[in-house]
Every structure is written in C-alpha cells, then in structure tokens.
C-alpha cells in the first residue's frame, strides 16, 4: 500500500544519516512535545490511513463541493422545498426510488442473489402499478424491503478492492471501484432507457436529472465542514470506506 512512501522515507533517512557528518542537509525544525515519530509506527496498520494517493486533489475537490453546495446546490434545494408541498416532495422521492430499482434489480441479478432479485422485481411491479408509477411505496409495507445494490457493490462482491479513495465533484466521497460502478450503472440505465430519452428532446432528460439531483441532495443531511472536527476529511473517508464494506458484505 505505502511501500513507495516508505522507500522514499528510507532513502531520505539514509541520505540524512550519511550526511550527518557534513553538516545538516535540511535546517532541523524544533521538535514538538509529542512528535509524530513517537506515536506513529510506520509499519503499523491504522484504520484511519485509508489508501488515498490523490489526497491533496481530493481535499481541493472537497472544498469545491462545499462552495458548490453553498452557492448552487443548497439554494436550489431550498427553492425546491419552498415551491413544493411536502406531500409532493415525498411523491417525487418515491418516484426516483422506484425508477432506480432498475439498477438494484440488475445488480441483484449480477450478484446471483435469487431472493433479493425476487423481492426487487416484485417491488418494481407492485410500486409501478398499485403505487401509481412509483409515487407511493406500498411494497415496503407488504414485507418487501428495498434491496440497495449498485455496480460498485457488485464489483466488491466479486472481490474487487476499493482502489484509491476519491472525492468526486458534486457527488462527494467515492473510490475508484465505486466511481467506475457509478458509470456502469449509468450505462445500464441508459441501455434500458425506461423513459425513452433517446427519442425525446434534451429537455426531458435534463429535467429528470436535475430533479433527481435536487431530490437526492434534499435527502442527504450531510453538510460540508459542519462536523465540528478538524479531522472531518479523515472521518468522512473512513466512514465512507466502512459503510461500503458493510454494504458489500450484506
């Protein structure tokens, strides 16, 4: 995982050691009371050290997402909430949940999970008919719980590792495997094309995608830089990684 970094450190240490006779190579910084070297063993595993070679870029994107949230996303959500009655908002949420069952179904099939596949297929049928195109969700009340699956989980299920941690613009925390999975899920959806976007003007897909994004943001309580922790980036990275682990193991 961090071999190259460790090698780098070893080389530097060796050089410093060899040069220790010929005056300091770098001006030695004054030591703090609790120096890192005393508490962090380089060869030890730490849960918080998630593989994140692009960290500086990720942190920049994280910051971008905060500004995007503040100036674009959250105002749009607020406007949406102001315009729509709560009742209608819930119908919209259910509608998107129901449409995305297509991806859940595809991934249940890909993971060869007969029970989850059956439940999801039944949910799709029940909610699209009795639930009026998915505006309501009677299936959950009938003992057909939603099976959240996505291509990232499917890849993980077949043993594909996380790869490097990524912070995606607008979408937030992810990793290489899940980002590829997101792209794949999009392909699957477009292949099935339930709303016949292909033969429609660009307005329909645009409306669909915008509303879907706003609805998703509305349902995500997370706000950037609001945890009250100076280590928020590390915490989110760890929580995302562990959450995906739990979802894949399910």
């Amino acid at each position, binding site marked *: 995982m961090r071999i190259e970094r460790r090698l780098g450190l070893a080389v530097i240490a060796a050089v410093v050691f060899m040069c220790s006779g010929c005056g300091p190579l770098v001006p030695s*910084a*004054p*030591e*703090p*009371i*609790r*120096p*890192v070297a005393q*508490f*962090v063993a380089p060869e*030890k*595993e*730490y*849960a*918080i*050290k998630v593989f*994140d070679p692009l*960290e*500086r870029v990720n*942190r*920049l994107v994280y*910051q971008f997402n*905060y500004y995007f949230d503040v100036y674009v996303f959250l105002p749009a959500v607020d406007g949406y909430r102001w315009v729509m009655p709560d009742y209608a908002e819930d119908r919209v949420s259910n509608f998107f949940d129901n449409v995305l069952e297509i991806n859940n179904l595809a991934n249940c099939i890909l993971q060869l999970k007969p029970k989850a596949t059956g439940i999801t297929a039944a949910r799709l049928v029940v909610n699209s008919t009795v639930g009026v195109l998915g505006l309501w969700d009677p299936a959950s009340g009938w003992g057909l*719980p*939603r099976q*959240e699956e996505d291509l990232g989980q499917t890849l993980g299920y077949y043993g594909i590792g996380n790869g490097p941690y990524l912070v995606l613009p607008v979408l937030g925390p992810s990793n290489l495997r899940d980002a590829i999975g997101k792209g794949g899920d999009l392909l699957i959806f477009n292949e099935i094309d339930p709303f016949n976007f292909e033969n429609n003007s660009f307005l329909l897909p645009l409306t669909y995608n915008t509303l879907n994004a706003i609805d998703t943001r509305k349902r995500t309580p997370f706000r*950037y*830089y609001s945890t*009250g*922790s*100076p*280590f928020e*980036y*590390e915490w989110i990275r760890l929580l995302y990684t*562990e*959450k995906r*682990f*739990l*979802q894949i*193991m*399910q």
Partner: protein
Amino acid sequence: MPALLLLAGPVSAKEARSYDYPFDNPFEATVVGTPDEYQPELPKEIPSEIFSIKTFVRRPVPKIFWYQKGMDFSLVAQPRKAPLVFLIAGTGGAHDSGKMRVLQRALYQAGFHVLSLSSPTHMNFIISSSETMVPGDLRDDSRDLYRSMALAWQKVRSTVEVSAFHLAGYSLGAAQAPFVAQIDDERQLFNFEKVLMINPPVDLYKSVKRLDRLLEENIPGGPENFNVWFRDVMNHLSKINRELDLFKLSENALYTVYKHYPVTDEFLAALIGISFRISAANMVFTSDVMHGGGFMIPPGVELSPYQPLEDYFIVAHHTPFSDYFREFMLPYYQEREAGLTGEELQRRQTLQSIGDYLRQNPRLGLMHNRDDIIVSPEEVDWLEETMGERARIYPHGGHCGNMAHYDNLAAMVAFFTGQDQWNEN
C-alpha cells in the same frame, strides 16, 4: 448578593420515586440514551435560527481553518414576550448537538426562548471565542462563555422580547453554569432567575481521568491494539447488518440493534471512552494549531488546508486528557502565574472550590444520577449534602442518558417555571 439561606430542619435531596427509565446499567444508559417510548411528545419542528458573531474581531484565523467564520450559536424564539434560557453544551458538544436539540424542543414547547452555545471545548468556540485558546479551566472558560453570551444577546435582542433570563448546562456545561452565574452576580447583565446544572462533574480532573480509563482499560490489549479491535467490531457489525440492515433503521436504531444484540459492559465502556477521546483530540489539535504548534505540530509550521493530517490524527487520539492537562495546559498557566502547582490548578477545576456559593445560592438547582459514571458515589453524596432541597437525584440514568426521559424534561421545565413538580416526590 444572594442572602444567606438558612434552611431549617433536616435537608434531603429529592429522589424520584417510581421512576421507569429502562436501563439500570449506567453504561447502557450513557450509550443508548432514552428510547422513544420513554420520551415525551415534543414538537418536531422548532423555529431554530443559527447566527454567527465575531468575538475577537482582530484575531487571525489560520489557513487550515478557513471555513471557520465566527462563533456559531442558535436561537429558538417564541413569537411573544417570554423568559429566555441560555444553554451550555457538554464536552465537545455543539450548540445544535442532539442533546441540545432535545432540551431546545422541550423548553420551546414550555414557552421559553432558548439561546444555545457550544462548549468552550468545541473547535468553533476555541477558534472564535476562547481568550487563552487553551480550554479546560472552569473560570477562564466561563469568562469566555459570559463574553459570548453578552455578544450573542446583543446580536438578537432587537428580535426577541425577554421577560427574564435563566441558565442551564449539561455535563461540563453544568460545571461551568455556576461560574458563569457568579460572573453575572458581579456584572448583572442578565440577573439569572434560575440556574440548572444537569449531570455536572464535581472534580473535573478526576472525571476526565475516569473517562480516559474507560478507553485504556476496555480495549483488549490497550489503545495500542485499537486497530485489531476496530476490525473485529466492523466484522461483527457486518454480520448484524446482514440481518438487520443498519442503514434502514429509524432514529431509534441504536435501541433496536441493542435489543437484538446485547453487548458487554467492556464494549459499552470502550465506546464512551472513544467518544470522549475524539472530543479531546479535536480540542487538543485545534488548540495546538491556534498556538502556532509546539505540542504535536512542530513549532512555527503552518498547515495548509490541502495537506494530509492522518499522522496528527493519530497523535491527537493518543492523547489522554490527563496528558493534555500535564503537558499543555499546566505549563501554559505556569507561564502566566509563577509558582502555580498542578495540584492547585486541579483544585480550581472543582465544584468544591465554590462550595459556599453552591450551598448559599437559592437560584441554583441540580439534576444528577446516582449511577453517573463520571462521578463517584462520594461526590454525589457531597452534591446532595451541598444542594439539599435544590437537588434532584435519579436512581439511574448513567451520564446524561436519561436527559430526554419525560420525567427529567418535565422536572427541568418545572424548575424554570417554578411549579411544584420540582419538589414533588
């Protein structure tokens, strides 16, 4: 000056009789809190507004904290003239933390305005409002709180009509409340009618030692072995998740999981220790940055917002509160006060150090639990003896676990409204 109150006859604290809080194990209570069915009906939506103010206008904010714009506090206002309760959060708690929101909803329902402040140990408070930026001293932190309360009040006074002021805090905030009240006795800005302490520590240093120990003694192999323990917990969780789907559970999730999978006391104690250690780590790192390094950051090194912090994360989370006290806080105070000893600084962080004030002030009230894990039985006895009639001690509830219980919330409201319920047995 409060008149000396001479109480006639034997004085005893109120024991709540026929109390149906469900957990008599203090670790369970502290972690799981109050299940829904033991909470009163509270309004779901309250008109909460968040404000941000500049306490120290000229203080530069380090680059790494670029997103900190000022001190945040929240106000829940009644549309009419009403008494206002100031709330102080516990260690590491924000003005809008879960526990604070429960208190806000209960007090709003009872007709109070509520103005909530984060704990002086919270990152946002240290950066914006702490004069020393070295939290942990009850008197200095209370001075910071008082200054912030005055500024917050200045900010909102034109929008609310207030008939009287009250003050309440839980946990560390409860220990700060009487110190804040003392300052107000001098300055007379608010003239608090009632001051309520909810589950305060009696001796701050002893309490944090107890919390430090919860982590050190309940991770098999000690904190050094944390990673093994953590992986083990996650693997265990994945089994539970397969059956329960933790991502689908409601707000009362914890209780649901708990009923299915009772866990050991060691595990619960470790969780409490970890949660406290996280608060301490956030505090220590923030304080170190604000002082330009020297504790874990090399002195004079300026951190960029884009640089990895995981090494500091590890050091910060390997810093028990007692180490912070000895290696950071004590030297800082010794520099300002020649000859100050650790014992003396510790002695100042006790309620005993203002025992007379607690004994004589009729406006103070106390709620506590006999089995609170941050205090010893002797300390609860001392509180009872000191507060007499003004104390309400519950048989169990752990540390703040029963704060949302209907009996507790009713008693709090009764305390501020002056109803009899407070004195009923």
